[in-house]
């Protein structure tokens, strides 16, 4: 069995791709949060992200590949792990020794993945059509109203909020866990763990706040 196919190598690749997505999430949150405090800045940043060649044709494909890799590897690991226990226990008390978030990463991950499908349908697909199919002219002022109008529907806002709660569970275990998988264990471990837990709660709550803020502060069409 080669090094690449070892269980530790798979987990390390999972941790690295997860850390990459955590960094992306922070950047995504920063831009989105600007829509609450400074709509012009949001338009400016969104325009830059949507038109910059490096972002569009280098970073965006890397990000999409990172997401695909993370969930494909997650599914591979889940299937392999399930095969490690052919006969399950008649009685299993998992909650006595581990958290729900740590035991159900595949569930929280699947919900986040389903949410990504909706999120792409809401924002990414219309953006691609606008720019590359209909070949419209770049218009910096369109991003803010488009964003606000997406949060008009209470059903969509509800789905977004639910997905962010599951994202919170996913990050709560996954972010801290990635450092353990990378072999990180030193005098800074406690502080790092504290930061990961803070991040896991703050970022999804921030996204929920943004969705609710725009839902209750709609602008005319």
């Amino acid at each position, binding site marked *: *069995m080669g*090094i690449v196919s*070892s*269980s*530790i*190598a*798979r*987990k*390390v690749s999972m941790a690295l791709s997860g850390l990459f997505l955590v960094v992306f999430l922070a950047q995504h949150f920063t831009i989105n949060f600007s829509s609450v405090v400074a709509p012009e800045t949001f338009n400016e940043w969104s325009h830059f992200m949507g038109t910059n060649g490096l972002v569009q044709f280098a970073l965006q494909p890397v990000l999409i590949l990172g997401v695909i890799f993370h969930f494909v590897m997650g599914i591979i*690991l889940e299937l*392999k*792990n399930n*095969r*490690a*226990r*052919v*006969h*399950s*226990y*008649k*009685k*299993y*008390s*998992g909650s*006595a*020794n*581990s*958290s729900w978030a*740590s*035991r159900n*990463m595949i569930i929280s991950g699947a919900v986040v993945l389903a949410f990504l499908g909706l999120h792409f349908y809401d924002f990414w697909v219309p953006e691609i059509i606008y720019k590359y199919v209909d070949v419209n002219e770049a218009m910096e002022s369109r991003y803010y109203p488009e964003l606000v109008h997406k949060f008009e529907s209470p059903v969509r806002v509800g789905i977004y909020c639910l997905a962010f709660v599951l994202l919170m569970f996913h990050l709560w*275990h996954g972010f*801290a*866990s990635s450092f*353990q*998988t*990378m*072999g*990180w*264990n030193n005098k800074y471990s406690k502080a790092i763990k504290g930061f990961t837990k803070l991040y896991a709660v703050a970022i999804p709550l921030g996204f929920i706040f943004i969705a609710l803020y725009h839902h209750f502060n709609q602008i005319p069409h």
Partner: protein
Amino acid sequence: MKLTLKIWRQKNATSKGSLETYQVTDVDGDMSFLEMLDVLNADLIENGKDPVEFDHDCREGICGSCSLQINGRPHGPKRHITTCQLHMRSFKDGDTIVIEPWRAKAFPVIKDLVVDRTAFDRIQQAGGYISVNTSGNTIDANSIPVEKDDADEAFNSATCIGCGACVAACKNASAMLFTSAKVSQFALLPQGEVEASRRVLNMVNQMDKEGFGACSNTGACYIECPKDISLENIARINREYLKASVEG
């Protein structure tokens, strides 16, 4: 006290097992869990029935033989103890207790509650040793200075008794806590440096070959470990493995 036991009965490795129900009476709170099973077996033998097979040896928490999944948890409801250290005062009169064998592809059931844990032996054989020159100029181990903290940590890792509770507790049936403890007890000492890279690569390779799952860092293994083997060992084996992989 009077208890209802639901015990996994399986004739042999190939037959299909099932939970069977037994009643035990006059159970004293000061009995160990294994003594309670002794009482049940004495009763079964007296009535001409097949006694329940279960592993046990020292009955003082040292050997790592006893291996029962009790009410969904390895070694029962208390943390950091073996089944033989579990006393019946942890249960109430009228309780129903479900007793199952460790469940893992790498730990096939031999009979009833006895599983084959030789997968652990094979992991150990793959690298859990040091080579010492015994040709006549053997260096006394005590002449090699070791930092006190490292010596203590290596000793703590070496206290793993290989009972398999870590595998039984893990949702993935992962053997990372066991393997990491066995790697750590050498990785922390100068005597283990020579074979460090080969050791970790071979032991992880063997662990994967045996069919254990990957570590999800749930921490269940540590909670159920009778010897308090720390999760830091898992970070260390990951680190050692990455280092060995890079060095080639």
